[in-house]
């Protein structure tokens, strides 16, 4: 299934360190700070990147980190710092779009399926469960291969991988909220189906979404990196951490650590940012959720 385990492992390790209330707020703030840092990095890329990320030979090949190239250069003499900065763009674009799409699709389908029930629900659930049963990465790879190269296909395959998660979660919540007493009370007061869904069920189902969004984003960053690492999906001319990681990996045997490490570090940092934000949010929202 879509792999949320790595962000979760990081987070459970971290949360075991801090049990007091202050920690969640720290997580949320820290996570948000990291995410925003990357967002700014992406937006301001043309301004802050010292070199054209695709221009080969701006420096010597495999120059180690120095004042002119703080992160060194890669096998084609390109500035790694600039590639890292520009790389944030594609990651954020792909991650955020696929998250947005998959959450919207998953939530809407989950709402309808859960509320209406019956055959529609049975069919949709079966379909979603089959998708969910695939290890996320394998599914992403399969889809990427099928859809071919390009940004859109990558976004689509990532979207498809995560829709079942939202679907299942929202559907589950709808099913339980649907049976709760206050929904019955609303029905007893004369509310119709539409009112019930939008004013009673949906608001009670929403709180769980932001958390899953962040954790999905964390996972998506990793999945995208994996796809690029395997050379799938993204076209070559777009600076991309996963691909650079792949290229840098080969140089490790020669003790040339910088082409792989910096992109790798960025992947980890961004994942961490989303995870911190998501888990911190989960802790903060949970007491409110359970104190009903």
């Amino acid at each position, binding site marked *: 299934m879509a792999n949320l385990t790595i962000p979760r492992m990081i987070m459970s390790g971290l949360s075991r360190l801090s049990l007091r209330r202050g920690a969640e707020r720290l997580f949320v703030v820290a996570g948000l700070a990291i995410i925003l840092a990357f967002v700014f990095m992406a937006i301001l890329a043309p301004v802050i990147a010292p070199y054209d990320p695709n221009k080969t030979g701006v420096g010597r090949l495999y120059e180690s980190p120095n004042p002119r190239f703080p992160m060194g250069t890669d096998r084609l003499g390109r500035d790694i710092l600039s590639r890292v900065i520009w790389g944030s763009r594609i990651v954020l674009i792909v991650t955020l779009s696929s998250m947005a799409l998959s959450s919207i699709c998953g939530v809407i389908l989950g709402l309808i399926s859960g509320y209406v029930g019956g055959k529609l629900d049975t069919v949709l659930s079966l379909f979603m469960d089959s998708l969910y049963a695939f290890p996320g990465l394998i599914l992403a790879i399969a889809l990427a291969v099928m859809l071919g190269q390009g940004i859109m296909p990558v976004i689509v395959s990532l979207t498809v991988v995560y829709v079942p998660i939202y679907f299942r979660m929202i559907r589950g919540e709808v099913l339980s909220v649907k049976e*709760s*007493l*206050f929904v*019955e*009370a*609303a*029905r*007893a*007061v*004369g*509310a*119709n189906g539409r*009112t019930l869904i939008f*004013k*009673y069920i949906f*608001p*009670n189902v929403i709180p769980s979404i932001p958390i899953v969004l962040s954790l999905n984003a964390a996972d998506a960053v990793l999945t995208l990196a994996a796809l690029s690492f395997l050379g799938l999906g993204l076209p070559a001319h777009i600076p991309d951490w996963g691909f650079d990681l792949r290229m840098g990996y080969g140089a490790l045997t020669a003790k040339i650590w910088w082409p792989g490490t910096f992109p790798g570090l960025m992947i980890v940092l961004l994942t961490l940012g989303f995870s911190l934000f998501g888990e911190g949010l989960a802790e903060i929202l949970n007491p*409110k959720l359970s*104190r*009903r």
Partner: protein
Amino acid sequence: MGSAMPIIRVVNLKKYFPVQQSFLERLLSRRIDYIRAVDGVSFEIEKGEVFSIAGESGCGKTTTGRLVARLIDPTEGRIYFGEREITSLKGEDLRRLRRHIQIIFQNPYASLNPRMKIGDNVGHPLEIHGLAYGEERRRLVMEMLERVGLQPASKFYNAYPHELSGGQRQRVAVARAMILKPDFIVADEPISMIDVSLRARILELMIQLKEELNLTYLFITHDLAVAKYISDRIAIMYLGKIVEMGSKEAIFSDPKHPYTEALLSAIPIPNPRVKRKRVELKGEVPSPINPPPGCIFHTRCPLAMDICQREEPELVEIEDGHLVSCHLIK
């Protein structure tokens, strides 16, 4: 009985729930078992009275309440609201009926929308029925909040349910039920989940509102002491049927059915000096899936006779307004 038409009339009401079966069971056996939650119940409620249905858990009183409030459909039988038959109302007609019949639920911790402010929880019915919006709606809600003792109303208006105690939440539920100024209210164990010292407050509130708004109550409870306190008439239910029904005085001073006697003798009394005659009941409540033949109570009745095993007794009126379902009365 009064000469006016009763506000609620229930005739031979039944509700059977199919027992959950696994896929395999359904495949292998054609027979479906039913839980006979309500098994042929008939009564009338006069306008302005408090009619209680009392009994132990599983007797069918809650299901009866929900049937009368039309939250669920009956398997058989008819329900009348005034002159109108409401048994199979659906859709828009049913929604319009809700203006006149309201329900107060047992669990104050679950009956309010946790994501809506108190003011919206109480005011939403007004919007649903197109009775008041905006400023007018707010005014009516504030009035209602004050009336149920949630003051200052403005503070409670903007609060969320989780900020209130159980007793306060139940008062919100009462406010919500009353805001449409209905004619008839089904109160399903409204105080059983409230602290003991606060129950009287809710009961008092319900009694006052009954007078002010000219209401009629169907009060469902397992606590006969409460039933004695608040009711005009009481029906005792056992295993889906009414075994005895009558005025409060008749039931408590002159119970005729052995089950009623047993029930009354078991009610705890906060007085160490009183001597009680204890009625022993054998065994346990039988399963509602396979109720005993004949009189449903005969398996536990200390006075059971031969005929009780074979023939089901009818609910007959033995004196004015006092009905019993038992072969002993002959």
